[in-house]
């Protein structure tokens, strides 16, 4: 039986490659993001959004959910002979790109954002919080519907809009599930073989049951999650999953006990099918919140095996901590070596201790699960809006340089930093003001209609999770361009202040002229010892910037009292922030990409090399220490993977970063030759998967600019 399951997983792998080709065609040739699992199908009929009468926009609970319902009703059904589960998503709910109502838009704030190169502003953002899927698994869709009705009965008319909207959505989801059941029964009836008949009958029966019932078996539980994932994705690309092993362990163990599961290979196929459906961010391993003991169980291995065998872009994380299960850890690294990509390593020590510093008990901190690109969140009880708010550290430096030169004060490093701090403070305040505005008006415009169902509080209180629905509210903001800015400050201090090779005015001129005709000056500025080398001026400035930013963001809450937890992470803003940014004093030309997250720039060591240990030390040294991630991105040569001791060395490397206070390690394993060839001829490597930042993707799917970023890192490896 094992071979049959593995054949089906292989079939899913091939199907994903086919889908990817079609997706690339539809997306115009490249796709610089997570695979997201969407399937290139079309709606059964066009959907005309339902718009709010007053504003003419798809805003507010009523219009949003009515549009969502129409979309769900027109959404195609999907199932496949190689997948254990039915369901898919094909795109975002129509009309959701409508902006907020004019009277609730923060126009004043919006106007100032470009000055500070803030593009990912938090304000108006969606999702990026963690669900607690236990709620859905315990109740099922029918139970959720009855829960909504029960609480609606306890609330006044004022809450009617909220409850009717949520109820409307659940009823549509039930119809969506039922259509899958009906289609599966049809396919079973038409099946040419007994094997296929049984396959589709099984899917049909589970779906039919899940229209109302709460999952009883592991297979039903995962099928429920698949439908939830689909609906979550449809609504603004929601992508947060959960700790899959502890969530599903009771179902697995009960099924084994009851004799329903006799073959673990079948379970591996379940998980491969789940990951085929959607690479929602999820986690295995970690600590029991109360006892601190590692929670790894048999199912943790089966989840990992499913990911490994499917071998497509995936966003599973292994939580590393002092007592991490060694066997699971070893297997995860071994699979990373075999597949070139695999789980990312969420570092419990830095994350848990950091979050606890906010005044939370350590057991709450341990509950914060790695369910996003770079981020963690408390499942179902925290509104945190992770990964959608970023401040560019480099733009305030260019503004500060202009400020200083325009002022009557003397030009000096101290004055430059003084102006820099003023400018950065303004950028930080813009973010904080945006957060306050967001909380006030978001629920009126784009309520979290999907997450509300699987959080503790929104249904009980009749309040959106962004607006009083959950008890823990803290926000997040990531800094970008750390190395760009640190190396720039170092270049100024060394070449202008210490050596006097360049005047302040000349520096300003060459920057304004984008180093035109001043290549020697550009190279002179670029060649100062870099951030990451250890003990350099740039290292000192990196620490200064990280501390300054952390204090500005964390020490003072927003006007309305919300805490904002800082991290350093750039995601796609490497390009967007770079594109909007003028030439910088580190020798970077206008429009070029900024540095990646908190990583030192490629070739940061003297002589132009790099070393994973030096890089990890640098990233560990600039962690904010408040429980949000500042990830480390490392590329390991595939040759090491084949060698004795390679796995143990990488484990030691990850473990050390965890002990040093690191928060997340993303690793690619590929040979330089292969990555260069794939860059030249992406079509020859259709299933090469790389971890771009916090997410993984088919290398082929990335735009040439994104592929270049991965290649540049490899070239710097020497």
């Amino acid at each position, binding site marked *: 039986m094992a071979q049959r399951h593995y054949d089906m997983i292989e079939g899913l792998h091939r199907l994903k490659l086919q889908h990817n080709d079609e997706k690339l065609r539809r997306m115009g040739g490249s796709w610089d993001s997570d695979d997201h699992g969407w399937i290139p199908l079309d709606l059964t009929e066009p959907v005309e959004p339902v718009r709010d009468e007053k504003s003419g926009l798809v805003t507010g609970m009523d219009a949003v959910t009515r549009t969502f319902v129409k979309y769900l009703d027109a959404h195609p059904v999907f199932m496949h002979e190689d997948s254990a589960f039915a369901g898919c998503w094909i795109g975002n709910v129509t009309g959701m790109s409508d902006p907020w109502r004019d009277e609730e838009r923060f126009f004043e704030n919006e106007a100032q954002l470009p000055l500070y190169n803030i593009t990912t502003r938090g304000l108006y953002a969606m999702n990026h919080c963690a669900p607690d899927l236990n709620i859905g698994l315990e109740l099922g869709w029918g139970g959720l519907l009855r829960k909504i009705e029960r609480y609606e009965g306890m609330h006044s008319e004022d809450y009617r809009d909220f409850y009717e909207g949520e109820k409307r959505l659940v009823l549509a989801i039930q119809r969506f599930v039922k259509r899958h059941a009906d289609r599966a029964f049809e396919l079973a009836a038409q099946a040419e073989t007994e094997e296929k008949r049984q396959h589709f009958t099984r899917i049909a029966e589970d779906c039919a049951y899940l229209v109302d019932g709460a999952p009883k078996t592991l297979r039903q539980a995962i099928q429920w999650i698949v439908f939830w994932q689909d609906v979550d994705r449809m609504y603004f690309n929601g992508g947060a999953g959960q700790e899959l092993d502890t969530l599903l362990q009771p179902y697995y163990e009960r099924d084994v006990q009851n004799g329903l599961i006799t073959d673990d290979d079948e379970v591996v196929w379940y998980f491969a099918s789940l990951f085929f459906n959607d690479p929602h961010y999820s986690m295995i391993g970690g600590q029991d919140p109360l006892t601190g003991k590692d929670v790894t169980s048999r199912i943790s291995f089966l989840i990992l095996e499913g990911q490994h065998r499917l071998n497509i872009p995936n966003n599973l994380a292994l939580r590393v901590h002092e007592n991490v299960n060694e066997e699971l850890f070893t297997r995860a690294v071994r699979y990373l070596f075999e597949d070139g990509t695999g789980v990312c390593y969420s570092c419990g020590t830095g994350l848990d201790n950091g979050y606890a510093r906010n005044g939370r008990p350590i057991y709450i901190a341990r509950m914060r699960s790695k369910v996003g690109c770079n981020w963690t969140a408390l499942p179902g009880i925290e509104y945190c809006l992770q990964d959608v708010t970023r401040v560019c550290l480099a733009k305030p430096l260019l503004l500060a340089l202009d400020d200083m030169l325009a002022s009557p004060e003397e030009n000096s490093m101290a004055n430059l930093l003084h102006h820099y701090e003023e400018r950065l403070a303004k950028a930080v305040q813009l973010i904080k003001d945006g957060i306050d505005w967001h909380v006030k008006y978001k629920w009126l415009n784009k309520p979290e209609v999907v997450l509300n169902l699987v959080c503790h509080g929104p249904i009980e209180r009749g309040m959106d999770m962004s607006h009083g629905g959950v008890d823990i509210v803290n926000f997040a903001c990531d800094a970008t361009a750390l190395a760009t800015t640190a190396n720039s400050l170092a270049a100024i201090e060394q070449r202008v202040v210490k050596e006097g090779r360049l005047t302040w005015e000349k520096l300003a001129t060459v920057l304004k002229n984008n180093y035109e005709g001043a290549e020697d000056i550009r190279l002179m500025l670029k060649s100062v010892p870099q951030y990451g080398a250890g003990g350099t001026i740039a290292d000192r400035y990196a620490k200064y910037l990280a501390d300054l930013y952390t204090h500005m963001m964390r020490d003072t809450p927003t006007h309305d009292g919300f805490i904002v937890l800082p991290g350093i992470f750039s995601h796609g803003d490497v390009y967007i922030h770079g594109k909007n940014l003028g030439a910088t004093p580190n020798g970077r030309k206008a429009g070029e990409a900024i540095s990646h997250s908190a990583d030192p720039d490629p070739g940061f*060591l003297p002589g132009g090399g790099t*070393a994973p240990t*030096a890089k990890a030390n640098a990233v560990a040294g600039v962690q904010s220490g408040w429980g949000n991630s500042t990830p480390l991105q490392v590329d390991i040569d595939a040759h090491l993977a084949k060698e004795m001791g390679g796995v143990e*060395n990488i484990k030691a490397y990850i473990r*050390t970063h965890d*002990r040093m206070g690191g928060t997340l390690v993303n690793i690619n394993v590929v040979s330089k030759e292969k990555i260069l060839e794939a860059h030249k001829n992406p079509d020859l490597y259709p299933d090469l998967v790389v971890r771009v930042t916090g997410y993984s993707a088919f290398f082929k799917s990335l735009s040439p600019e994104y592929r270049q970023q991965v290649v540049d890192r490899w070239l710097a490896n020497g």
Partner: protein
Amino acid sequence: MSMTGTLFDIQRFAVHDGPGIRTTVFFKGCNNRCAWCHNPESLIVRPQIEFYPTRCIGCGKCFTACPNGAHVLKDGEHVIDRARCTGCGLCADTCYATALTKKGYTATVDEVMETILADKPYYESSGGGVTLSGGEPALQPEFALELLKRCKAEGLHTAIQTAGNVPFPVLQSLLPYLDMVMYDMKGFAPSVYKWYVRGDRERIFTNLRLLDEEFEGTLAVRTPVVGPVNDTEEEIGAIAEMLEGFKHLSYYQLMPYHALGKAKYDALDEHFEESFYTPSTEKMTLLEDLAARHVRVFNYTRGYLHTQEEQ
């Protein structure tokens, strides 16, 4: 004042120079002249200038920076007059395009230790440590000894890569502070030493035997397998046969030659011998299997190949 040594590189996250994650300190200067050496910048102690013309932006600053007029135009092309170049590095200091780089620098024990200790947590978690390599580290024995003493005081695992062409008492002085010795045997036949290694064969052989008598740590012997010089069953078989009688040998390792040093030879205006080649994987496997009849052989991908007796 901390003692100083002459180095040409320090490599962090070194995973091929002993167990675990290591930092390898490359000493400059060697008294062998292996014709295939992939680190030509390691041979002489004096600093040297590497020149990579493709990076040159033609700013001309090096011409004025050089006090000896070593940068000249020859047939319209920028070249270094090596007879005039003292390796002072003033030209490289002005070359922001990094077309000119100075190879070789003086470092104090304190400075080297600072770099080494930056990665101490990784040594501890991986069972790694520090490796002295080169060049020939035993040619700077006082500096090597001081460095090793400091490493041991920090509780670090220590290793040395040596070609053994030094008086035995020099090696002997380092042994109390070494956990591992990786000893290079470049070949067996006297002709290999006469024409290619250009080092004292008798001393190298004798020192290895003495090491086997005296050293209580891990002793490994390594041979770079270079076609057509020593990639033969006769050469490798003879070395393995000799090692068979050794009491403390941990393993024997064969390392295939590679031509990656070519760019550096060009940058130093030195002759790169094109006639050497990398033995095929099949050939390497055959030679390893042959050696494994006599001694335990280590290969990074194949692991340990045990002799019949061990099996």
